């Protein structure tokens, strides 16, 4: 079997081939590494690639599979981990200069769970610095390009994880989602990503951005993989006080069930102004498809949607301003070379270590928590959060699943977003409420726009109802044509063609790769 053929397999398919001794774990790792070698210079999905380590893990996992110790649906499958999850002995940077040299002494619980399921870790994926951003352009270690069109961003903040899956540089990845950071880049990269109910996957070892909103989740080629990865990653963890004891984490059991009689609601608020026409029609067409399969689909008013973004940015930034205080040059990470005294050391290390978007959010968060402003901003945002949760509770009294777009547009061009942060924040309109309400949400590809960029369909469930969204997403997936990014199939020539077009344009983006 050729490396290319191996790469085409989904994670669950690959694990089955490995179990049947058709493919060795080593071959699977080599297939991914081959693609990394071919496309990584153009895509830049990874901050750290663990080539030798992956080969060593492959041997160990193979032994366990051979001895029968490992037999799960992900045993031996190479995966990538977003660079905000701690991995013992392996650089973990959050794509920030301030953690540019940080090697954790322990491994995040979610990653440990995957390792127990037989994952081989290929490396750590690029992201917006500390997960703050919607394009992966705020990374201190260079941008990531969209595998569907190298002039576009992959979305963010889990852009590296989504691009790696779309470019077949790994078979699945872990991402994290604070305000849409799994679902939006999954939509932009044409892959499937799921943000679970808050508390389903342990946050122990996830470097916090907005603690009350952060959740780790899978990024994968299809719904089946997503369900399998979530099943492996989820666990009750005593080390995380917000972790939930759930008895219903057999997410794969929802696969293959039809949607007859399922009640699906589309918030009218999600189809209004600012939504690109191509995205609107693709999403509505997806709704029709589900209706055709027997689901009952109708539009309704969710309300409060316009308050979600301000509430989200106030809460997330407030928590971030405190969470990121520990990066001070004292214990680990970056410390400025020259300073006079403690406070100067703090100031210089943080000024030099953090990028502009992170600084912006730390300042915003510090401001809303300041005495005299706390009630007006932070407390009000918490009340808004509670009201948004109530609005969803009402909606879920009517509907099993809420359907809508994952983002108002498809992936923007590189360099177009950061100049207007407020506009970039508005792009999170369809995703942030899910985090505020602690709900599960999944994005599945539902076609391409006129430019050939992927469009994502978002399905939102009530708390603990991952199975319903998995069921609906799986049913929809059966009815659509599986599309693969051009670079996955034909990396070298796509890159060559793109480079040629860039030279023609005068190589204006050269400096960004520096």
């Amino acid at each position, binding site marked *: 079997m050729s490396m290319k053929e191996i790469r085409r397999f989904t994670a669950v398919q690959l694990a089955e081939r490995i179990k049947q001794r058709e493919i060795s774990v080593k071959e699977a790792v080599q297939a991914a590494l081959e693609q990394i070698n071919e496309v990584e210079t153009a895509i830049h999905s990874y901050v750290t690639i663990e080539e030798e380590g992956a080969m060593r893990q492959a041997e160990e996992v193979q032994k366990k599979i051979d001895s029968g110790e490992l037999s799960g649906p992900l045993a031996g499958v190479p995966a990538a981990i977003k660079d905000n*999850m*701690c991995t013992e002995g392996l650089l*973990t940077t*959050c794509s920030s200069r301030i*953690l540019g040299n*940080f090697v*954790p*002494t*322990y491994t*995040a619980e979610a990653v440990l769970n995957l390792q127990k399921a037989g994952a081989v870790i290929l490396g750590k994926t690029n992201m917006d610095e500390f997960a703050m951003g919607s394009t992966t352009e705020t990374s201190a270690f260079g941008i990531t390009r969209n595998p569907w069109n190298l002039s576009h961003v992959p979305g963010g903040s889990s852009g590296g994880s989504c691009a790696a899956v779309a470019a077949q540089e790994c078979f699945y990845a872990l991402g994290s989602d604070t305000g849409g950071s799994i679902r939006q880049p999954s939509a932009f990269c044409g892959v499937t990503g799921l943000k679970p109910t808050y508390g389903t996957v342990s*946050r*122990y*070892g*996830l*470097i*916090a951005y*907005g*603690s*009350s909103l952060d959740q780790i989740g899978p990024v994968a080629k299809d719904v089946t993989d997503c369900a399998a990865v979530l099943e492996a990653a989820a666990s009750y963890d*005593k*080390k*995380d*006080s*917000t972790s939930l004891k759930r008895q219903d984490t057999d997410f794969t059991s929802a696969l293959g069930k039809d949607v007859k009689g399922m009640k699906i609601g589309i918030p009218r608020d999600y189809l209004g102004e600012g939504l690109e026409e191509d995205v609107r029609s693709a999403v509505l067409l997806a709704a029709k498809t589900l209706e055709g399969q027997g689901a009952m689909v109708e539009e309704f008013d969710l309300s409060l949607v316009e308050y979600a973004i301000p509430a989200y940015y106030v809460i997330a930034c*407030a*928590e971030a*301003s*405190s969470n990121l*205080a*520990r*990066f*001070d040059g*004292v*214990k*680990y990470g970056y410390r400025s070379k020259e300073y006079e005294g*403690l*406070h100067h050391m*703090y100031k210089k290390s943080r000024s030099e270590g953090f990028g502009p978007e992170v600084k912006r959010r730390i300042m915003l968060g*510090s401001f809303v*928590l*300041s*005495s005299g402003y*706390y009630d007006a901003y*932070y407390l009000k945002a918490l009340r808004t959060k509670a009201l948004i949760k109530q609005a969803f509770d009402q909606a879920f009294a009517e509907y099993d699943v809420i359907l809508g777009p994952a983002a108002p547009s498809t992936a923007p061009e590189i360099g177009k977003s950061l100049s207007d942060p407020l506009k970039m924040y508005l792009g999170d309109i369809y995703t942030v409420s899910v985090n505020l309400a602690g709900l599960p949400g999944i994005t599945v590809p539902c076609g391409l726009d006129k430019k050939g960029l992927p469009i994502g369909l978002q399905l939102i469930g009530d708390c603990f109802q991952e199975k319903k969204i998995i069921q609906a997403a799986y049913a929809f997936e059966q009815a659509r044509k599986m599309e693969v990014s051009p670079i996955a199939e034909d990396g070298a020539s796509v890159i060559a063609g793109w480079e040629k077009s860039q030279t023609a344009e005068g190589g204006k983006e050269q400096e960004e790769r520096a």
Partner: protein
Amino acid sequence: MSKEYETVIGLEVHVELATKTKIFCGCSTAFGGAPNTHTCPVCTGMPGSLPVLNKQVVEYAMAVGLATNCSITRYGKFDRKNYFYPDNPQNYQISQLYLPICRDGGVEIETSAGKKTIGIHEIHMEEDAGKLVHDEWEDCSLVDYNRSGVPLIEIVSEPDMRSAQEVIDYLEKLRMMIQYLGASDCKLNEGSMRADVNLSVREMGTEQLGTRTEMKNLNSFKAIARAIENEKNRQIDLLEEGKKVIQETRRWDDAKEYSYTMRSKEDAQDYRYFPEPDLVPLVISDAWISEIKERQPEFATEKMARYKQEYGLPDYDAEIITESKFLADFFEAAAKLCQKPKKVSNWLMGETMRLLKEREMEPEEIRFSPANLAKLIALTEEGSVNSTVAKEVFEKIFDEDIDPESYVKEQGLKTVNDEGELRGVVKQVIQDNPKSVEDYRNGKEKAIGFLVGQTMKAMKGKADPGMVNQLLKELL
């Protein structure tokens, strides 16, 4: 001084709880240990680590709250207090601002004017910080995180105290209560109990409170008393000169007996408190509160009453013994063994206190066992040793915890009860001291004391003085 002033004092008392592990991780709270050996990702603020609340901390805080008549907050939360300092690895301290675990309590103290209740505003739980060590040799500062995450409760009183004596009484009452609960050893000199004094003065009779200062670095009751006296006078002097008291935090230097400004109100930091998102709300059920209530020990006041009633101890003895939980426990253990509570009390109140004072020790530092004291009491009761010998043996017990039975045997200290032998010695003494004999016969009753002493001397202390007395009278 033309006007009369009143001093108004409130206290913030930090108490280090005696849990085995830290408040938010499983690391040991043991004192000492090489730097950074009692640490983990949580208490060193490693990225991605998360706090998990230690149940024992909550139970101790509840126990102290119940003992001080506080109401327990059924739905509580933790908050983050944000400030940058290297001893604080996350650069925020997990504490409680908005919903502290205990509120609205009080402690009763005895004053010259009778009983008085010092109100308790709140008790909250929080984590301790690490320790900075400045290396003069290398000219750098190092951090030891062994203390980081050790549980503390902060007991915030109302401004109800009016003198240094009331402050000391309140603190002693608190300390006794907390020691009885086993929630802390409350050692001021070791920092397991720390008190910050908020003090203001106002003209006698006025309602409005004056501007207060906060005094830190008070490491003993004596330092607290001195600092209060000093600060009171400083503020009155300012007011008398027509100046204003500035709201500020001051640091007490006990060696120089003066305080200086640490930071003024203008420098006060904005701690940007907000609810700790990594911890879930702390919900305390009625059942849990009842459970803690049931487990509350017998406190000093109840114990005192019982000692008086059950053992017939005098007020004074009962009070002194119950002042220290350790002493009270010791008393009960020894009393149970020898069934002579009054005798045990006598040994504790007399010789024990004398030796403690002489050796500059606290009752908690007593090393001998109740069993050995009980044995000694038995020996004296059966007349095997006389009181002089007993005192000598007791000192040996106090210092080395020896077994009095074998010691008395080995050293040959047993009282000689052989009347024949004693009679011979007494006769000899009468013969050798004709002057005293004559005095006695002439009605000088006191002269017999001298003769008893001479006999005891000849017997090397091993005789029963009562018997000697009796024999002397008989033979004279």
